[in-house]
């Protein structure tokens, strides 16, 4: 979240403050420092350290933090995995990932100072003694690097291994619940469960070992610059917030489109589908940021309380309403930038008779004072024409008089569009007179691009999120009650679908913006999709 202005009381990091019963030199010197500088050094233990997420995202993110001088000095990054690997081999693995996936090219001099902080421990969670090598190795590393014993456990492993890993950490005495100094934190990735029941089971199991303020549930969408900018746009500009309500907003659209197919994730995706994979987490998180009330402070729990209220205000879609307000579909074969691509059922690892949805569109109502009567239409899908995530806020039309009097040439309503990816930024569409003697009106854009305005590339979401975990700031992470509230809301939809085992599933050709049923969903309200 943004730094407080200079005149405001200096913000402290909530958990760091709670963590600090002793008055160390660090505590004294960090007074008045901004967040990144005041991060305590720690060991980051990555379970699944030799996996794809670590290779593509985590290690490049940590390297970029290092490049920016934001990674606390002496930080140890310890990959953990079953596969035997030496520290040097792990450094090569990291170097390869950084070379391929870092937003900035590998700098050999920076690498030389980053690499010594990388370690690898071969360990498993198969039995009680299996984490012993990790414990002894961490002790040595922390002693050698002068670390205070703060640890972050990152579970970059399949969800089925979350609970066993946490239990092993507890049995092996790596962590004590509520432990404040040295502190211990845990990061888990979505999906958190496959339904409400399984989400609760995971949360219960983790809660046996970690206190809620030690738990960081990552939704990487929340780490994106533009997503963070939604609150800034709304609450740091007096022009927008007065308009964000049912008096002025006609409807809101959220589109999260992917061009890729299921790729290597068929095993997971077959069990998940678009609703579980994208809507229950990413899209509902975006919706909460657009719709939430102004929080009274930027404290993590205050912001998250407001977001939770939005989820709790969502009108439930149940029974026959699911058929009316939700469209699911599966992509067939088609084209991606001119190249033929297979249908979902022809993808490797996918059941040829699969009924898993690769696309979902919903019409959602928020039953509160602010948004009463304003539809939120959201959609997400695979194999769509372009990779794009966008929120568009459509203002009401001007009355059909004066410049909008001609029904054949109606004015375009104003639209505030927030581009989350790619080409992060936002634009405001307004009507303007074309120069000349006649009154002709053209929809023009006031357009802001992060890339060309601020230069350089924006930090990756994982950079911000990892730094926040180190700083103990939970604002951008999902709290247990929010995760479960989101599951509670999607469950009636999943239940309805589970009953419908024979109805034909709508399809759409790969490379198109979804099935005709999705167009009908929005056109029934007199509106149409805005393609990013």
């Amino acid at each position, binding site marked *: 979240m943004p730094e407080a202005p200079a005149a405001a009381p200096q913000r402290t990091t909530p958990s760091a403050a709670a963590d600090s019963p002793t008055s160390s030199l660090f505590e004294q010197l960090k007074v008045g420092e901004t967040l990144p500088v005041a991060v305590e050094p720690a060991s980051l233990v990555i379970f699944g350290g030799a996996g794809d997420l670590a290779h593509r995202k985590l290690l490049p993110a940590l390297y970029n933090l290092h490049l920016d001088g934001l990674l606390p000095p002496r930080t140890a990054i310890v990959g953990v995995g079953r596969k035997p690997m030496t520290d040097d081999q792990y450094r090569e693995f990291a170097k390869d990932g950084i070379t391929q996936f870092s937003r900035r090219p590998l700098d050999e001099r920076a690498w030389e100072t980053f690499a010594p902080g990388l370690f690898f421990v071969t360990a498993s969670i198969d039995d009680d003694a299996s984490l012993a090598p990790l414990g002894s190795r961490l002790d040595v590393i922390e002693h050698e690097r002068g670390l205070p014993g703060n640890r972050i456990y990152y579970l970059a492993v399949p969800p089925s291994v979350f609970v066993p890993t946490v239990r092993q950490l507890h049995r092996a005495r790596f962590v004590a619940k509520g432990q404040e100094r040295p502190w211990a934190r845990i990061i888990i990735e979505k999906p958190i469960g496959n339904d409400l029941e399984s989400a609760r089971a995971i949360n219960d199991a983790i809660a046996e070992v970690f206190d809620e303020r030690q738990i960081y549930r990552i939704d990487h969408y929340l780490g994106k610059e533009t997503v963070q900018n939604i609150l800034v746009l709304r609450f740091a500009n007096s022009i927008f917030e007065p308009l964000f309500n049912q008096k002025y907003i006609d409807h809101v659209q959220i589109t999260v489109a992917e061009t890729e197919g299921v790729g290597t994730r068929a095993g997971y995706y077959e069990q998940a589908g678009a609703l579980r994979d994208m809507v229950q987490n990413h899209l509902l998180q975006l919706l909460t940021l657009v719709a939430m009330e102004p929080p009274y402070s930027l404290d993590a729990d205050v912001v998250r309380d407001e977001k939770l209220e939005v989820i709790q205000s969502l009108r439930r879609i149940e029974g026959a309403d699911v058929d009316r307000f939700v469209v699911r579909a599966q992509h067939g074969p088609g084209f991606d*930038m*001119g190249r*033929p691509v297979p249908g979902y059922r022809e993808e490797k690892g996918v059941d040829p008779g699969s009924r898993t949805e690769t696309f979902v569109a919903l019409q959602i109502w928020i039953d509160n004072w602010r948004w009463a009567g304003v539809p939120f239409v959201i959609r997400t899908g695979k194999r769509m*024409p372009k990779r794009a995530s966008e929120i568009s806020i459509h203002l009401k039309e001007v009355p059909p008089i004066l410049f909008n009097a001609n029904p054949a040439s109606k004015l375009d309503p104003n639209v505030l569009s927030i581009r989350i990816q790619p080409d992060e930024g936002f634009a405001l569409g307004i009507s303007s007179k074309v120069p000349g003697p006649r009154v*002709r009106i053209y929809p*023009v854009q006031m*357009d802001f691009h992060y890339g060309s305005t601020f230069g350089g590339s924006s930090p990756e979401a994982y950079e911000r999120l990892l730094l926040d975990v180190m700083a103990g700031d939970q604002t951008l992470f999902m709290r247990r009650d929010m995760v479960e509230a989101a599951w509670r809301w999607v469950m009636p939809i999943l239940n309805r679908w589970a009953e419908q085992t024979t109805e034909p599933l709508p399809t759409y050709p790969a490379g198109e913006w979804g099935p005709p049923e999705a167009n009908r969903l929005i056109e029934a309200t007199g509106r149409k999709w805005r393609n990013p």
Partner: protein
Amino acid sequence: MAQSVVDRAWRPTTPDDIEPDLAELWRTIAKERPIARAVMSNLVVVRERAAAKAGEPLTIDELAQDLPLEEVVARHPSRVILIQHDRSQTVCAPFAVSVGVLTFGPPEARYGVEEISVQSACAEQSLPSIVRRLLRGDVPTSVWWTEDLSQAPPLDALVSMARQFVYHSHDWRDVRRGILALATLLNTGPRRLDLADVNWRRLTPLRHALLHAGTAADLDHLRRGNVQIVYRAGDEALAWLAVGWLAARMEWTPEATPRVEETRHGDETLSMAVGPDLTAALNDHRVLVTRRGAAGFTVSVPQEDRADAVAAELRNLGHDACLRDALTALVARFSR
């Protein structure tokens, strides 16, 4: 006055790297000097060009040959998506892609326009997947059909993405086929498609002149189709647009048959005689209206080149009822 291009930054790329490479180009340019990104619309330009050899790319200059593309986007900044489409090929996937930023304006007010060129031997069914990827959703989309519609009818899938369809009927070799090719575009149902014929602009001064010259006596001749139109060679489409306009406004029945003739003499682009008394003659500079036994008058013709005209049409989003009615009347006439 429109700006001339002051800089071009180009780089070849791949289909998957179009957006990242464009972003990189913008960043590079922004480092050198402040620049505003200007985009009023998506401008999809389709060129039906067969490559000399399958899979062999044309240079960007070859691709945009005879097309005042830079001049148009200087006047109406757009995200240009220049597609070379080769109908003779059935192989899919673009084989040459490049991205560029054209810079205009004085140093203190530089603005840039992005251009994406895709050369593809894609089948018609796969071509839309390329264009769909490249369109920006927050601005209107115009398709500028630079080919002769009478020979290369528009691709429905491309037109379905557009809000405006711009063409120039002057280029048609077969007016009847050109008009009939537009028939489906006139009936897009509830979806709004604005048609813009650059040639139609040329008729505007003549229409204005007739509005001011007409009398009750002329009306009777006009209603009965007692009209003779003589056009300069190459301007047959313009003549028929005039017929379409009159047919729509005078509600001509099939029996009303104006005489439409070509001439290879004189410097008039188009002359229209209404009955025995009234004549309006259009050339590149004026419309001269003469009436037997009365003083004539002239209406000035605005001087604009093709880039001016195309840019003006792009800016002029909207429903041109006169053009639409004229085309509808011609479709009915040529369908018989």
